[in-house]
């Protein structure tokens, strides 16, 4: 099946070359960072995790989001998702590849990464994160490949694969739960120390992941003649809207707990993120525009997706716009605000703001490009098989 | 034989390329056995016999590392009346004061680059910034 990636229209090759350019720039920048150390980034003693870990956190969600296709199709036998389930599984693969690259980019001593396996430490959440991420990656490769092969041969998939398909569902939940536990189990970081982090992560994942799949379907319809079907799209949109509303509800609950209890520790990070904070005569409000953009985009996207505009048979512009807005909104929420906000204030109640460096941004863009490169190849295979059996 | 003109020179080049390590080491000094310089202070005795150290110093260093750091066992070794504090910097470098002439001579030959000296100070390095002692 891999041979399908080797034939394509010029646009396909131009797109791959375009991504390849970012990958090359990212790789060159990574070599600089590798040689100099993480001092090449904007991270500091007080904001010790930056863009890499926040992207990782967001992308774990994108990977988990694929389960919103697998679950209705395999458990509830919702046939409309039959054609796009594979897109969810392949998206999960690409997202986990990005997650792993971001983790590697973030390590101070990447050559020692295998110490996590050589000296396994069950009391560390990172150990479990490694286990579930590798497990979920393996399950998606296995299930995606076996089912696509069966589809290509026009036979039923072997029975044993269903065990792994069903197993991948709790795994999808677990990857994001364990990722949330990286944060919510740390004493002294009030913004993260909240039992609602895992459900909040899952809610935003179940909106952002499917939103990206809807976007992918719209693009594939235009460039590859792949039609996922309006019914499947509408069902996905329903899932997205509910998940997005849940996420906004959970964010609202954080506000309630912080502001009604009036406990400074609970309030501080929210205040910093959404309103900015004045501390010793200096105003810190780096992230305020991002957070308000998140709120506006999220509610705008929910409104747009719920309106008849998004359901038009002949025009999917508004559907695509809504999904893009929602994806960006939740990227701002989780891929920027959540991780960076947690470091403010630091354990000694000082405020240090984080600004990524150009080198760091280039590496981040390079990893995203790698993810989309992998995604393009995988989708090329999936669509190629679909066309072959038609 | 077809294409004699390309095959034979090609083969010759290939053989030359494959045997590169042999003739390169023969022609240059890169292949000569390293001669690590013995301790400048004239020390004859080590914590273990020279044969053992030659083959296993890395394991011993790892063992010391785990003793000192992980088990908190920093007891001072006494071997034939001489006292040694466990540690590359504190025991080994006390006699083998010239890392460049001792450690490096074999490590370069064997093409290994242990990361010991990313952290541990050689006497030379330590002297470069007026040591406290």
């Amino acid at each position, binding site marked *: 099946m891999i041979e399908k990636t080797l034939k394509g229209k010029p646009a396909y090759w131009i797109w791959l070359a375009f991504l390849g350019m970012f990958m090359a720039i990212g790789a060159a920048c990574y070599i600089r960072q590798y040689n100099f150390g993480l001092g090449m980034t904007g991270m500091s*003693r*007080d904001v010790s995790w930056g863009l890499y870990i926040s992207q990782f956190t967001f992308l774990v969600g994108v990977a988990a989001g694929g389960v919103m296709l697998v679950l209705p199709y395999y458990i509830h036998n919702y046939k409309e998702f039959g054609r796009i389930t594979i897109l969810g599984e392949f998206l999960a693969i690409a997202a986990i590849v990005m997650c792993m690259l971001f983790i590697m980019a973030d390590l101070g001593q990447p050559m020692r990464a295998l110490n996590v396996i050589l000296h396994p430490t069950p009391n560390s959440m990172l150990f479990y994160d490694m286990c579930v991420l590798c497990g979920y990656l393996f399950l998606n490769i296995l299930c995606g490949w076996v089912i696509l092969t069966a589809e290509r041969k026009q036979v039923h998939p072997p029975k044993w694969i269903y065990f792994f398909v069903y197993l991948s569902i709790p795994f999808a939940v677990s990857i994001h739960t364990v990722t949330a536990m990286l944060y919510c189990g740390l004493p002294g970081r009030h913004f993260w120390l909240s039992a609602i982090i895992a459900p909040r992560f899952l809610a935003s994942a179940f909106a952002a992941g499917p939103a990206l799949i809807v976007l992918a379907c719209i693009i594939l319809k235009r460039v590859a003649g792949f039609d996922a079907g309006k019914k499947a799209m509408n069902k996905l949109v329903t899932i997205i809207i509910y998940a997005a509303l849940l996420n906004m509800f959970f964010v609202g609950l954080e506000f309630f707990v912080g502001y009604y209890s009036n406990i400074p520790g609970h309030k501080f990070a929210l205040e910093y993120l959404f309103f900015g904070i004045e501390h010793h005569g200096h105003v810190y409000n780096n992230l305020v525009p991002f957070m308000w953009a998140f709120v506006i985009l999220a509610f705008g996207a929910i409104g747009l997706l719920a309106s008849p505009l998004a359901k038009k048979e002949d025009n999917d512009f508004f559907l695509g716009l809504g999904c893009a807005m929602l994806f960006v909104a939740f990227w701002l929420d989780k891929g920027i605000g959540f991780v960076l906000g*947690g470091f403010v204030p630091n354990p*000694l109640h000082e405020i240090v703001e984080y600004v990524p460096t150009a080198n760091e941004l280039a590496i981040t863009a390079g990893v995203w490009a790698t993810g989309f490169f992998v995604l393009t190849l995988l989708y090329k295979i999936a669509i190629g098989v679909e066309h072959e059996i038609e | 034989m077809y294409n004699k003109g390309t095959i034979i020179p090609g083969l010759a080049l290939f053989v030359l390329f494959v045997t590169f390590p042999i003739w390169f080491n023969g022609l240059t000094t890169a292949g000569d056995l390293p001669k690590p310089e013995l301790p400048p202070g004239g020390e004859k005795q080590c914590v273990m016999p020279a044969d053992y150290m030659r083959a296993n110093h890395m394991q011993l260093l790892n063992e010391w590392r785990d003793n000192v750091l992980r088990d908190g066992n920093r007891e001072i070794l006494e071997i034939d009346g001489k006292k040694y504090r466990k540690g590359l910097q504190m025991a080994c470098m006390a006699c083998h004061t010239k890392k460049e002439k001792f450690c490096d001579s074999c490590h370069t030959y064997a093409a290994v680059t242990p990361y010991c000296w990313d952290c541990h100070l050689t006497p030379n390095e330590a002297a470069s910034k*007026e040591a406290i002692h």
Partner: protein
Amino acid sequence: MDKQRRKFLKIAGVSALAGIGAPAIIKLTSSNAVASSGGQEAAAGHAAPAAAGHGVAAVEAPQGVRLGMVIDMRKMAEQPGQLDSAIAACINAHNIPEFPDSKNEIKWLWKAPFQNVFLDHSSYHSSTRVANTPFPALCNHCDDPPCVRACPTKATFKLAKNGVVAMDFHRCIGCRFCMAACPYGARSFNWQDPRPYIKKYNADFPSRMKGVVEKCNFCGERLALGQEPACVEACKATGAITFGDLNDPQSEVRQVLDNEFTIQRKTNLGTKPSVFYIV
């Protein structure tokens, strides 16, 4: 032929996975996989003989040696330059780099105002002495350290021998999970090669390399030689810092604790710090 190749690839794949996974499984099933509980098991063997008969606080029976310190801020204020010399002694002893910018800073022992060090104590109308004296901050060598819980490689761990929370720089992968976990901000990361910023070398101690985390080690290397930690020694003139075994009722540090009212940092987090302050 084709079938055989597939079969071979399958077997090779499964064996490769098993090969990678096996060491981890073996290590996990061996006795002391859980670093923190492993430490306690071992510590039981060292139980201080004097403590055994006393039965102090049944809930938290003292086990083994637990090193800790009491910092007397009244004495610290007597000689204002004292803390600076303690910090300098720490920097000298451990080859700590001095970066000009706060972004790269490496701090084992440092100064901060009372209100920053003691966040859960009121600094509303505190006495002039407290408000004007910088407080020393350092690793608390917690009895239940969150950083040890977070570390994915056991590069940081609690020594069974004396309760010190130590680091193995050889093993640290630089994930900085411990920095996020530490509620005291006691951990620093080497964002770049520290050597150019080390002013003077102590030939008896290594430096660190880029990409690893470091923090106060309660001067484990000095304790081994029967010396006191560098900061304690630097404050010897006034005796502002007392150091010793918190579990030994006869120790000097216990005498101070028995006679004075002391406070600790962020006790509500359950970390059980081993550093006490007399304000």
